[in-house]
């Protein structure tokens, strides 16, 4: 660190775009053809999933894709190095739905 840097206020680099309204927060992103994901959460606190039927949801207008715990189990995301691999509760309790 250069001499005299310790204790000196340092200007932040991100302030310029935040102050002028040009920060790209997630909701500000607008790519052509972008789709939107909704997380569907369990309506009960604790349950065993017997069966997931996505047929009605898949037939709904505008739905691109529905992902469930089964999709996750088939192709798990790589775990972040140095963090324990976490199998999400998706397989047991929740569903993920994508719509355009």
């Amino acid at each position, binding site marked *: 660190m250069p001499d005299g840097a310790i204790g000196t206020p340092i200007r*932040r680099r*991100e*302030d310029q775009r935040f*102050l*002028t*309204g040009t920060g790209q*927060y997630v*909701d500000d992103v607008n790519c052509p053809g972008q789709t939107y994901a909704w997380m569907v959460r369990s309506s009960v606190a604790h349950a065993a999933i017997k069966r997931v039927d996505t047929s009605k949801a898949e037939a709904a207008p505008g739905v691109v894709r529905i992902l469930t715990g089964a999709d996750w189990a088939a192709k798990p995301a790589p775990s972040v190095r140095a963090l324990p691999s976490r199998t999400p509760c998706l397989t047991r309790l929740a569903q993920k739905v994508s719509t355009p």
Partner: protein
Amino acid sequence: MATTTVSMTVNGKQVSADVENRTLLVQYLREDLGMTGTHVGCDTTQCGACTVHIGGLPIKSCTILARQVEGADVKTIEGLADGDTLHPMQEAFRENHALQCGFCTPGMVMSAIGIVERNKDSLDEKTVREELEGNFCRCTGYHNIVKAILAAHKEMTA
């Protein structure tokens, strides 16, 4: 769904778009005009992240319809800086580390300008904190925002 053509001046420029009657001003700005500096932070008119100026007055754009603003003069955070030169309020926020994640900042800056303009003669910390009640910040604890506004007041009323 009924639609209307809504025209207004935004940051000095004449704009016009055909929108559903239920379109909020904040949606008009963000989605129809692509100006995403004005943010949506709540669904309840509480947080103030959507604050813009309409006819010079700070107004929460989430709680007014675009068609209610027909013909008006609107200013957003994107219209404050003059090219590369920041508005004194923006500069004060930067100098005083009045932002962290920056999400509330556009609304804070727009509201703060209103606070200064309403209190030109004198402005104290208590008044700033009271008049900032319509703007929420989760990051900073407000302390540096208050400092920035008081500093900007000095600059702007010099």
